């Protein structure tokens, strides 16, 4: 169960494609810095933010992994991954960074309902 007044930040965009991912993670980090309990849900292409093997992109495109690693320092330890999304991308759970937790697709609505606040990126 999510704590009262918890914020769920939903991440649906992949690294390097746009700034959605980075700006979504920034929102999560700032909320946590303000003392708000924060959980993350990764759906669709957003799951790629958790791939272990990523690196920086074309010149000047920062890598996402250092930010993912930072989440724990901000006490953001729930990184939910929608299982169906993982499967439909033909990704295995062990290609993801440590700390990612699979959640069955049918649990996704419940996760949203548990959280008082939601931001969708």
């Amino acid at each position, binding site marked *: 169960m999510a704590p009262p007044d918890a914020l769920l930040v939903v991440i649906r965009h992949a690294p390097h494609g746009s700034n959605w991912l980075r700006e979504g993670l*920034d929102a999560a980090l700032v909320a946590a810095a303000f003392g708000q309990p924060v959980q993350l849900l990764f759906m669709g292409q957003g799951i790629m933010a958790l791939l272990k093997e990523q690196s920086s992109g074309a010149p000047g495109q920062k890598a996402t992994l250092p930010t993912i690693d930072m989440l724990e320092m901000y006490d953001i330890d729930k990184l939910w991954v929608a299982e169906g999304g993982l499967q439909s991308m033909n990704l295995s759970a062990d290609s993801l960074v440590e700390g990612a937790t699979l959640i069955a697709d049918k649990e996704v609505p419940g996760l949203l309902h548990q959280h008082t*606040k939601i931001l969708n990126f």
Partner: protein
Amino acid sequence: MQYGLLVMGAPYSSPAPHSALRFAHALLSRGHQITGVFFYHDGVHNASSLMAPPQDELNLREAWAELNQQHAVQLDVCIAAALRRGLMSESEAQRHGKQSYNVAPPFELTGLGQLLELQQRADRLITFA
């Protein structure tokens, strides 16, 4: 009720600001208050004072400024998202050694914390993106 709006699309490139503006006027006409509008991601372009669309298209910046003047709606722009995309206030311009600037009141550059505070304070936060 108190509403907060989060706008994340750029004028002319996305319909999001148009929808948000129309929603804002509908809110007011139903007697609600708008606590604030927060511009994030490409939505920061709504604040550009250099926007000069053809005369038969709406100038979104002016439409937001009007909403501020008539209903005291606060217009906050995420500073990190803005600087990256070429939007800065006079004081930021000085800090970055630039002669020009393109964000002026009633738009205010502010941190992301303002978005989270808006979400806390308002009864509803509606995202347009």
